[in-house]
């Protein structure tokens, strides 16, 4: 099934090269929500994530001329998304990023408390830990796919994932004022 999707996406990329805007639209809407969510979680604010979204897809389609079907299109897209987010995080800022303030989401108090705690706990972790947690435990990429995205070996990703899960658990415990 995954191979079927990969070959379908390879055909869509070929159609993009041939000038078919409909192929662009299909690939965009298939992954736009996931890329926006990933960027929002990594950057910690939606405004930057929306700007990154555009940049990610532009870079992706620019790169499509040299794209070879090594792994999935989604993994390749997330690799670009991660690089764009890192570039964005490295940019000097005149104004500080939003920092765990009142969230913009709705929902009941417990849900909002959970989201705030998770966001704050995530932001306390090193970027690589955040990345591997978001890729493997939220987006459900395999360790092999995550390794392709972040440019590391599979054993390295697995080791990092374990350390990241431990760090997240400890950070969440501290967010809720509990002893580990």
């Amino acid at each position, binding site marked *: 099934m995954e191979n079927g999707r990969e070959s*379908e996406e390879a*055909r*869509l990329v070929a*159609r*993009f090269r041939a*000038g*078919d*805007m*409909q*192929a*662009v*639209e*299909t690939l*965009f*809407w298939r992954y*736009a*929500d996931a890329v*926006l*969510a990933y960027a*929002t*979680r990594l950057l910690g604010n*939606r405004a930057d*994530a*929306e700007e990154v*979204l*555009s940049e990610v*897809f*532009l870079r992706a*389609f*620019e790169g499509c001329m040299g794209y070879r079907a090594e792994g999935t299109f989604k993994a390749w897209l997330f690799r670009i998304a991660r690089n764009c987010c890192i570039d964005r995080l490295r940019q000097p800022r005149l104004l500080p990023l939003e920092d765990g303030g009142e*969230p913009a*989401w709705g929902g009941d108090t417990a849900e909002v408390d*959970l*989201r705030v*705690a*998770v*966001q704050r706990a*995530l932001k306390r972790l090193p970027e690589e830990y955040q990345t591997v*947690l*978001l890729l*493997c*435990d*939220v987006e459900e990429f395999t*360790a092999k796919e995550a390794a392709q995205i972040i440019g590391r070996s599979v054993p390295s990703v*697995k*080791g990092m*994932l*374990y350390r990241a*899960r*431990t760090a*997240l*658990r400890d950070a*969440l415990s501290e967010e809720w004022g509990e002893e580990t």
Partner: protein
Amino acid sequence: MKCTEVRELLGNYMDQELTESMMQRIERHLLRCPACAYEARSLEQARQLLRQGVETPMVSEQLGERVLRHIAEHFPHLQTAHQPEELFSLPLLPGDFEE
């Protein structure tokens, strides 16, 4: 199994990437060892909280239209195929693009 061996395999255990016999060996250890059982349970809870607690924004039609227009402007060969204004009149259906 020793605790150190179990801890090394706990990530694979959580991801169910072990053989059935190894999964069972670890489960037997977790039944007897409160420290390792706590480690496994708390890591799984943290993973569940992460999944429930992360923000899940959606791309609005307006934002999507803006990005697609940007892409269409950036690649002139696309503009010759479709005008950006036409994009949203086309239905997106699974299998719509099979050749």
